[in-house]
């Protein structure tokens, strides 16, 4: 596979230069993927993908063109598109985001990012599906839904500056949602570079446990509460915050950090958030970014202080900084997110709460204003009321409706256990603890 993809990429880069482009990067991807989806404790659909795709970054006289192609014939489609798009460059002005493609640097390959057992499971995932259903039903739940996703991905990157890079990685992801009548439900997720049936089993057990614990819900009055965010919820909100550390988000008016600089205090000193592309536990681990820059692990927020704005070469050039190995040709982004653990157990954390709630899952986080971080998100699944250090009862759905800067400042504790999280609402693989936040505004429908 390596030679085939590299040859295609090199041919297209050469063709781009012949066609008159000053610079080109070609990323060619091969994706082999099976996803088994579960509902009502049975299979709903098995989906299998075999895709070749190609992405091209092209610059001509500092004008920028980006192509994303899933063609049936890569070379001829790329050739035709190169011809078609060169005239476009004459019609647009120099991109204010233009910067030369970085010179190739030595890339230290990642080891241990390919597990051949994933390939076997892609061919036949039935045992994993059976495990997910069986493990969920060890508790007295009624049914389980969810999915198991398994993939092998290869990518090559070739640039007109001479970079020639290849990487092959495996990955898996699962999330399960267990239901227990009349109103109990719990959801959890897991992700890994390697095939980890234990991860599926643990996901099933946690989801089922929360489903049982959340039966017989009663209402909760809106107001201010101390809130324990589960790794599922904290993962969703931290992903939003980490993505706002992208220089592009700031330039687009989509970040609470628009008025901040590295060195500013933006959160409680208990919070450290890292971008860890070289963490080979997490399935977006990669040795190089989309501009061929070697990746490296870095703090985004360290002990409450904003440490790193994420850059590609373009945003770095525009703001007088260095690339941080997070390209995205347009939008620099985190690869894998890790929140450093604290020193609480979950039970100890609950004992710290006089009047609060444990929010185990959420969805639909939306913002009124990205610059000020005004947002709300609605809980789903188990929501447990805590009084005087003990879980008292399950309660009905509420919203966290507050400002992200307030949430970050009011973090008062993290657990020592962290969890690999990835699902619909946490798209970047993340290692996240439970996080205690004080004095959070909680709302619910008024009518």
């Amino acid at each position, binding site marked *: 596979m390596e030679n085939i993809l590299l040859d295609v990429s090199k041919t297209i880069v050469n063709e781009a230069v012949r066609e008159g482009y000053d610079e080109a990067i070609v990323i060619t991807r091969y994706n082999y993927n099976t996803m088994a989806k579960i509902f009502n*404790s049975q299979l*709903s659909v098995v989906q299998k993908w075999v895709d070749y795709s190609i992405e091209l970054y092209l610059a001509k006289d500092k004008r920028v063109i980006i192509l*994303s*192609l899933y*063609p049936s014939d890569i070379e001829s489609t790329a050739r035709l598109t190169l011809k078609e798009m060169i*005239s476009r460059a004459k019609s647009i002005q120099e991109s204010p985001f233009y910067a030369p493609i970085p010179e190739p640097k030595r890339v230290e390959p990642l080891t241990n990012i390919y597990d051949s057992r994933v390939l076997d499971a892609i061919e036949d995932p039935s045992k994993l*599906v059976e495990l997910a259903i069986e493990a969920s039903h060890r508790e007295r739940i009624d049914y389980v839904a969810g999915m198991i996703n398994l993939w092998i991905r290869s990518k090559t990157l070739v640039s007109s500056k001479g970079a020639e890079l290849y990487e092959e990685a495996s990955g898996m992801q699962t999330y399960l949602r267990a239901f227990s009548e009349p109103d109990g439900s719990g959801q959890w997720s897991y992700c890994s570079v390697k095939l980890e049936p234990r991860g599926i089993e643990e996901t099933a057990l946690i989801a089922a446990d929360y489903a049982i614990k959340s039966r017989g819900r009663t209402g909760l009055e809106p107001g201010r509460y101390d809130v324990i965010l589960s790794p599922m919820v904290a993962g969703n909100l931290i992903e939003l915050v980490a993505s706002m550390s992208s220089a592009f988000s700031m330039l687009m008016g989509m970040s609470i950090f628009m008025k901040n600089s590295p060195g500013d205090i933006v959160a409680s000193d208990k919070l450290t958030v890292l971008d860890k592309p070289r963490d080979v536990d997490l399935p977006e681990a990669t040795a190089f970014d989309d501009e061929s820059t070697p990746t490296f692990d870095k703090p985004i927020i360290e002990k409450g202080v904003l440490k790193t704005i994420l850059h590609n070469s373009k945003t770095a050039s525009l703001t007088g900084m260095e690339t941080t190995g997070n390209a995205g040709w347009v939008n620099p982004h985190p690869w894998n997110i890790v929140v450093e653990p604290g020193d609480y157990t979950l039970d100890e954390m609950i004992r710290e709460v006089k009047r609060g709630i444990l929010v185990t899952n959420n969805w639909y986080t939306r913002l009124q*204003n990205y610059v000020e971080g005004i947002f709300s998100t609605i809980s789903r699944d188990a929501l447990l009321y805590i009084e005087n250090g003990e879980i008292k009862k399950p309660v009905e759905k509420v919203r966290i409706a507050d400002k992200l800067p307030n949430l970050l400042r009011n973090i008062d504790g993290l657990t020592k256990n962290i969890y690999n999280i990835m699902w619909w609402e946490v798209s970047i693989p993340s290692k996240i603890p439970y996080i205690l936040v004080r004095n959070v505004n909680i709302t619910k429908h008024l*009518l």
Partner: protein
Amino acid sequence: MVINLRYICIAENVVKFLEDIVLLAVDYARRIGAEYAEARYHKISSEELFSRNGDILGVGKGFEEGIGIRVIVNGALGFTSINKLDRDSIIGAVEKIVYQTRALSRCMKEKIVFSEARVGRSKYSVVAKKPFHTVSFDDKVKLHRELWSIVSRAKIESKISVFILRYSESIEEKIVVNSDGAFIHSITPRLSVMYNIVINHPEKGTMQKWEQLGASGGLEWLDDWRIHERVDEIATSMDNVLVKGKSPPRETIDVVVGSEIVGLIVHESCGHPSEADRILGREAAQAGKSFIKKGMIGERIGSEYATVIDDPTIPGSYGFYLYDDEGVPAKPRYLYRNGLINEHLHNRWTAYVYGVESNASARAMDYRSEPIVRMANTYFKPGDYSFDELLEDVKLGIYMKSFMEWNIDDERWSQRYVGLEAYLIEKGELKEPVKYPVLEITTKSFYSNVDAADKDLKFYAGTCGKGEPMQGVPVWMGGPNVRLRNIRIGVVE
């Protein structure tokens, strides 16, 4: 906007080749044991121009084509996609998915069966009045500079910090074939313009508005949207609210909900909970379930004014289609009718479970996506009031014209919309702006408290997300302005 149904005159040899390979996939799957087989050639080509404050950051071009193949084997459902379109690759892909679906069929408790359907054999295309190629690329670039010029010169107290504009045109072509005899060849061009305006005032802070305009057809829509006037109006109204906006009243009041918000509400709290696959639990771990349960047809959900229709066949609509991706002819679906739950959105599987006919709700985003139950163009049925008549007997209330933040729970019951452009109503007249009123309400309370709707039906474009992997499909959401009585409004703290 004119929709012409006509036979498509693209290169006959290409069409013949594509038809042959989708038929090959279906025939071969049936020969090796699939009870049902379906193949969809699906191509989308697109071009995008992206600017910040009038400067083009780059040009984007997308092109994707391939075949999505779906089979039922031993009562289990399998889907695969491939973008190598030679016979051997397609036969290999069919063999693998049939084998894998058969292996996984042991995880089934209830077999998947599709309802009988009178599937179509047809070719159609949406014909643009002003096709994309009739306007030069230079003029499309110029649009970005013109709009920035208008926004940046708006007569406002605040400063425009950011104006992002994304112009996108696309053409989608599909050939859907299945083992029940469907053969549908369609071509749909679409236009979309999105913008983000951020204004900043030294004392009052910031305010932000995202908006998307979209339709099927061509560049004629740019005139229809009055986009130049529109961006100026939005910037001006945002400034008015930011500088002069007061807190909303805390007592129980009447609320006139603007058509932009009404469109979103019917999409979220009628369209989504009416998806029969969601009701049956197929999306339970993703988009969630529904407050509507099987057997609730005929139950009351709102007042007599609450009629919500989903209609894929509206000419020019962003969610336009005449046949769904299972080959079933499309028609309007009356989801809520005069306050009663009336009809759900069905594909052929949910129709079988319910013992009804599919109403053509199966859509797939691209060749890599399985067809699932989706909305198309969902709207609240207009009434017979004028806007002034809606306001006329409101003693104290607010008019919420637009929004930014919203969300709804995973059963589509408890929802929240935060107003952006909003005004106080006193004694039947619009008064000063109101900042960030919060409508946080249950589905039943919303529809039950509607006591009037005006005649002015407007549609808004969106990309609706559902499925795993996530599929975003184009939709319209619409409605008139509607009046709610006796509502408590919240505030942003």
